């Protein structure tokens, strides 16, 4: 059952992406992108990332796609013929993309995700290949849930055991905790980044006032 649903979402995602890339009409491409984003949200749910799936729908479908559609509507001239690309650049792009795909496939299927390793007692066990190297702290495979809970407890008091319903709460609770503990600095930095990009976008996109408009503004103030 899991597999069937996965393949359905995968087909929606990839089909939408193909239409996005190859559709002649840019509006069709934008609508095909909608299906791709929905499919990706479904894939996120398949991989136990429910909070991210909702975020994906809100930000991509509700925000970025609408923004792209605005861009399409504001820039496309109705009735103009789409400039066809020379076949040379088409072939070059196609060969590059297919070559890249081949390299990626070779990397995926040529690399074993796990390998057996003997521990100190001489028992062989399956370990992740990249985990046998010293893991960088930001990629901590087992983020210390107990330590995080301890910090939260000393700061905000003990959580109400009846209200915290572990297991059914999904990933949102853990992500919220991580945002205010281990990932506090990136969280703040990205808040500043999004504020700067917002102000920057309005500054870039706003109309330069004409001299007459400036004179009117002067006389009013």
């Amino acid at each position, binding site marked *: 059952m899991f597999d069937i649903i996965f393949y359905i979402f995968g087909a929606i*995602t990839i089909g939408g992406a193909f239409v996005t*890339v190859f559709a002649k009409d*840019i509006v069709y491409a934008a609508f095909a992108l909608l299906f791709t984003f929905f499919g990706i949200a479904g894939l996120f749910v398949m991989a136990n990332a429910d909070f991210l799936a909702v975020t*994906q729908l809100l930000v991509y479908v509700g925000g970025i796609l609408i*923004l792209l559609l605005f861009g399409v509507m504001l820039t496309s001239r109705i009735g103009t013929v789409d400039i066809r*690309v020379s076949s040379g650049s088409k072939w070059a792009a196609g060969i590059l993309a297919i070559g890249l795909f081949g390299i990626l496939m070779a990397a*995926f299927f040529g690399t074993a995700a796990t390998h057996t390793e003997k521990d100190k007692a001489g028992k062989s066990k399956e370990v992740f290949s990249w985990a046998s190297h010293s893991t960088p702290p930001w990629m901590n495979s087992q983020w210390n849930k107990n330590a995080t809970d301890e910090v939260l407890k000393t700061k905000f008091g003990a959580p109400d055991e009846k209200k915290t319903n572990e297991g059914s709460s999904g990933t949102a609770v853990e992500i919220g905790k991580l945002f205010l503990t281990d990932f506090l600095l990136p969280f703040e930095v990205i808040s500043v*980044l999004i504020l700067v990009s917002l102000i920057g976008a309005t500054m870039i996109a706003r109309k330069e006032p004409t001299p007459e408009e400036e004179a009117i503004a002067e006389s009013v103030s």
Partner: protein
Amino acid sequence: MTVGLNHFLVIGAILFVLGIFAMLYRRNVIAVLMGVELILNAANINFIAFSRYGGVNISGQMAAIFVIVIAAGEAAVALAIVLNIYKNFKSVNPSEVDSLRD
């Protein structure tokens, strides 16, 4: 064949390659931006796949959230730039946009 890490990675790779192709092939800045979004989504799928199957756990989802936020900021700024380009050049073909000033 049960669905595992490689299935997610293959879907991510296909999206990534299609995004690269769109960036190189399309002759409309908006379509190029769509390619960029596809690439960012491909990266997100990889993050989520490794967070589920690769022992990275919830940290992978955190990285994906940051990618989504940066994609939102990128889309806003890029659209503003595209509107300005259209205003100045009356075209959204990236090969025709070849000067920074009038």
